[in-house]
């Protein structure tokens, strides 16, 4: 167990914590905007995980600089960039839906909406 709690693993633990917070917000919070906020927290937690996977101790950022050999892995970075685009598209579309739902039903409370 003790070998789990080395400093390099801290980002993974934080990422799991954020994942759970985001999931909680999406499932248990009743406000529709809060659910979208939860979705954003969930996706950033995945991004944090991927960036932490790419990180190498003593590595330099993946930008070509003369005289540097050891770079951190740039592949997960491109994954995260794509993920950020996707999260932005999802968020904006979901918020448009939320505005439309509010105009149609006059509430953003998930429980009340289910009763309609």
């Amino acid at each position, binding site marked *: 167990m003790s070998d789990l709690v080395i*400093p*390099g693993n*801290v*980002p993974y633990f*934080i990422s799991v*914590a*954020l994942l759970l*917070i*985001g999931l*909680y*917000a999406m499932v248990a*919070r*009743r*406000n529709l*905007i*809060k659910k*979208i*906020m*939860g979705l*954003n*927290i969930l996706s*950033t937690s995945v*991004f*944090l995980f991927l*960036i*932490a996977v*790419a*990180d*190498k101790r003593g*590595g*330099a*950022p*993946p*930008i070509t600089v003369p005289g540097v050999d050891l770079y*951190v892995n740039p592949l997960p*970075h491109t994954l*995260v*960039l794509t993920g*950020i*685009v996707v*999260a*932005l598209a999802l*968020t*904006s579309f979901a*918020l448009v839906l*939320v*505005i439309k739902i*509010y105009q149609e039903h006059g*509430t*953003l*409370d998930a429980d*009340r909406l289910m009763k309609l």
Partner: protein
Amino acid sequence: MGIAEFLLMSLLVVLAVAAVFMRDLLAATVVFMVYSLLMAIVFTQLKAPDVALTEAAVGAGVTTLLFVIAIAKTDRREEDV
């Protein structure tokens, strides 16, 4: 990883919890913006400056703005039970 980075990341969790549990949506959005900025800083700490730049522009900038518009067009407070 020094103490400063550890504190930075713990602050992420605190901010996320605050954003989720605040009843004032506008305040929660502001907290979420700070969370995104902090995430960008953490990304630079993990040697991903390109991702950090994007996260700062998208997460803290555009996403927050979209949230603010949505809240302005709907309801600012979460409804009570």
